[in-house]
């Protein structure tokens, strides 16, 4: 059922740079960067060798992106100053130059030609009104002074190099006609157009699905070998680091805290921050043989000393004896996308097709799938942010269709929704005290201003913030604190079910671990059920009781956590699991299983998708039969 296309691999062998092993081609020397008097990077030094990958790891605010922008001299545009340091670069045309002191005219010649960069968002880095071919040819003619025809030929070669099928046809397509993974490959092709000596990849796979991420990482690795290129890989994901890096620089609060070969960093890290970072990384498979999700103690850095917080605790909170809290039966949600001249729909997105599941009291059900699998749409339909096309949802034994208007409003108190991006889901013009009190006021849960304020303080303290925070605005908090605020807001109305839509994806791993524990503590205290929507298998393993894997709007596999993750039976589940990066540099993964992309859920009207039948292969373990 997977749309795996055979992709021809044509190596690119003409321009291989001769081996220059072990001589650094870029060395950063005591670099400091200041923004208006604030040091964001202090005394940073590292070297990059040809043919090697250096990973710069750190959490948000650690200065890793500023480092890459300083190498490209892009940081000045946003107000950076360099009080000290050098960035020495071995350039073919200019000899050894200091990138920090070189005139901008020289830098412009180095940029794109000798040092190229790819960014996180392939969608926004391509100009939507030009074809892929136009954009690749532009950078070719700019740096190489070759004719249009030659450029076009070269562009085809480049697209073949990044394993894009039908390369010559691809040239005439527009960015919106490509998927996210294809766009990122085009970006890589453009970056490689002039055979750069250094490729800076700034979180290149963060916005992509895991299977696509695996494909992109594999391509980058192969191309690096072919072109003997140095790669500076900036990421927050330790799994990706273990996969691609030869050397690692760990950054924390603008300083380099540790540096070394990847195996040393993973096995004998010395700095407490690195240890804390590694301990916080969720590793798939660590809970094998455990029937219940579990809270783990986490290591946090306090006063430069690693401290262990929390205790191990089995999360046996689910109550399977009573009736399910929420049951979804044959849910179908479709959207019209294209209309004909008379306004009649011709194409539809089949976001959700015949999905059924139950959630019990105190249980966490994880919905897993890649983009386009319909997992968010299910959550939004339950929260009544989206109308179902057909099917039935009942909460506490009562069907949504039979609810009166006031009961519907009550439902919005009992079911709460937490969004992926905590900054976007808080009104920027309201204090967080207002935002947290809003559900209480809306549903008249507590009378009297003083009592409401007391409750807000209580909620803030419960999620680890203080009373004084109530008068601040969302932008004054860090990402982790904001997600805590969103959780406090969800808790304010004493919900029975919380839908967490990728609520952890935007957070740093150390924060993520803390929020996971907070979620589980709250479940134990209040018996809350969670519908946990995620693409991250490792997180799902840590905190869910049951797992449903979605593929193109249908349930591919549903069962207890152990059943689905330890004995995956559907090919898609297996593929998804094998694509998860493993945070262990000694494990070599086989990428050959992960080919192709998920087909589009957009269909012509009348062209209904095949509904798969579910088969129970073990008690409570269902898989879809095709």
């Amino acid at each position, binding site marked *: 059922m997977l749309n795996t296309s055979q992709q021809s691999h044509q190596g690119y062998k003409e321009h291989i740079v001769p081996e220059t092993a072990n001589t650094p081609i870029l060395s950063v020397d005591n670099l400091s960067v200041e*923004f*208006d008097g*604030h040091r*964001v990077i202090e005394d940073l030094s590292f070297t990059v060798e040809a043919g090697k990958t250096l990973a710069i790891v750190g959490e948000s605010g650690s200065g890793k992106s500023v480092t890459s922008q300083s190498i490209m001299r892009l940081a000045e545009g*946003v*107000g950076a100053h360099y009080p000290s340091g050098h960035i020495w670069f071995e350039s073919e045309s200019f000899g050894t130059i200091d990138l920090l002191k070189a005139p901008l005219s020289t830098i412009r010649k180095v940029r794109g030609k000798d040092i190229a960069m790819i960014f996180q968002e392939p969608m926004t880095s391509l100009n939507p009104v030009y074809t892929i071919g136009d954009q690749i040819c532009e950078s070719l003619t700019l740096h190489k002074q070759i004719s249009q025809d030659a450029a076009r030929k070269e562009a085809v070669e480049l697209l073949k190099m990044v394993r894009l099928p039908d390369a010559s046809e691809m040239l005439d397509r527009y960015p919106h006609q490509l998927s996210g993974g294809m766009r990122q490959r085009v970006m890589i092709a453009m970056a490689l157009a002039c055979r750069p000596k250094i490729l800076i990849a700034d979180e290149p796979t963060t916005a992509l699905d895991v299977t696509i991420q695996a494909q992109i990482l594999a391509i980058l690795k192969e191309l690096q070998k072919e072109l003997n290129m140095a790669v500076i890989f900036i990421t927050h994901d330790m799994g990706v680091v273990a996969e691609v890096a030869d050397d690692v620089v760990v950054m924390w609060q603008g300083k380099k805290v540790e540096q070394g070969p990847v195996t040393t960093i993973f096995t004998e890290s010395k700095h407490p921050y690195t240890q804390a970072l590694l301990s916080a990384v969720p590793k798939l498979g660590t809970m094998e043989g455990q029937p219940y999700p579990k809270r783990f103690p986490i290591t946090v850095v306090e006063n430069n000393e690693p401290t262990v917080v929390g205790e191990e605790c089995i999360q046996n909170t689910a109550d399977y004896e009573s009736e399910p809290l929420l049951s979804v039966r044959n849910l179908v949600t479709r959207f019209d996308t294209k209309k004909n001249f008379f306004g009649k729909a011709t194409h539809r997105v089949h976001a959700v097709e015949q999905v059924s599941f139950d959630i019990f009291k105190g249980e966490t059900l994880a919905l897993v799938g890649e983009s386009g699998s319909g997992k968010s749409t299910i959550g939004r339909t339950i*929260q009544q*942010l989206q109308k179902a096309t057909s099917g039935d949802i009942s909460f506490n034994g009562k069907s949504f269709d039979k609810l009166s208007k006031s009961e519907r*409003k009550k439902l*919005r*108190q009992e079911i*709460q*929704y937490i*969004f*992926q*991006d905590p900054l*976007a*889901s*808080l*009104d*920027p*013009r*309201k204090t967080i005290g207002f935002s947290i009190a*809003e*559900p209480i006021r*809306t*549903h008249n849960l507590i009378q009297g201003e003083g009592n409401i304020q007391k409750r807000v303080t209580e909620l803030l303290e419960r999620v680890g913030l203080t009373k004084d925070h109530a008068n601040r*605005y969302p*932008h004054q908090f860090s990402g982790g604190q904001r997600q805590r605020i*969103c959780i406090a*807001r969800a808790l304010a*109305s004493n919900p029975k079910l919380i839908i967490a839509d990728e609520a952890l994806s935007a957070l740093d791993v150390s924060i993520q671990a803390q929020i996971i524990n907070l979620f589980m503590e709250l479940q134990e205290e209040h018996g809350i059920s969670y519908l946990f929507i995620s693409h991250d298998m490792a997180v799902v393993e840590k905190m869910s009781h049951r797992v449903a894997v979605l593929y193109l709007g249908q349930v591919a596999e549903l069962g207890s956590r152990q059943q689905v993750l330890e004995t995956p039976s559907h090919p898609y589940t297996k593929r998804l699991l094998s694509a998860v990066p493993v945070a262990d540099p000694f494990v070599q993964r086989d990428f050959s299983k992960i080919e192709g992309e998920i087909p589009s859920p957009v269909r012509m009207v009348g062209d209904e998708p095949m509904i798969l039948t579910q088969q129970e292969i073990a008690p409570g373990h269902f898989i879809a039969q095709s």
Partner: protein
Amino acid sequence: MLFNRFSSNLSNYKSLEFILGFLLTGSICLLVLLSDFIFQGGDKINLSARLLEPFSNPDYLLGTDPLGRDIMARVISGGKISLQVGFLSVAGAVVLGVIMGLISGYYRGFWDVIVMRFADVQLAMPFILLAITFIAIIGGGLTNMIILLIISQWVQYARLVRGSVLSLRDREFIQSAEAIGVSHLNILFRHLLPNLIGPVIVLMTLNVANNILLESSLTFLGLGVDPLTPSWGGMLADGRTYIQTAWWVSVFPGLAILLTVLGLNLLGDWLRDSLDPTGRTSK
């Protein structure tokens, strides 16, 4: 860190903006309000003192116009009409336009179609044609002029607000308010309105100036007040014929408009920035 820098710069700048804006607008309004007491009979025609240059005669500090009237007196008392027209018409158009824009952007569907088709008809009609039709049916006068300006300008605000609502509506914080069960009215006025008021304030300050000038053309068409009553727009129009020989006739009322608009712009910027806790709009 970046934010700290901006907001610290901002607070200095902000207060300067506020002080200047407040002083300018406040003193102009005060002068205009007190004009009756300061210049009693200042509008008198004195043909023996025609077109006196400014600062040449202590009785006529800013000179006189072709009918020998004191320009300073006329500028200050002319503000009464101009400011009334400018402020009231803009206020009316903002209230009507913002409400219509909020409704059509938020509810979409039926209301959107109705409001926006109205707006299209409104935009398709030339202003002068509308004005003449209006006079023919209802007649002139200050109130009618303000009503006409409101009718012809609410569309701008409605379209602006509708556009912002359409983009804000899909933002997560609006959806999360909906998910909590916040009522439509509260979403509209507590969440949407504060987030889109910035551009509306900018358009308001621009339109005040525009309407002060429009008042003179409407007076010319016979819709406004008695043409002999001084107003800034009217004085500007009258002075046009003498611009080569007697610049002061049109320069001083022009200066009055300029200072008013400058003051309002400063106040508007300050208001917009102080309503935005992130301080992001000021860069």
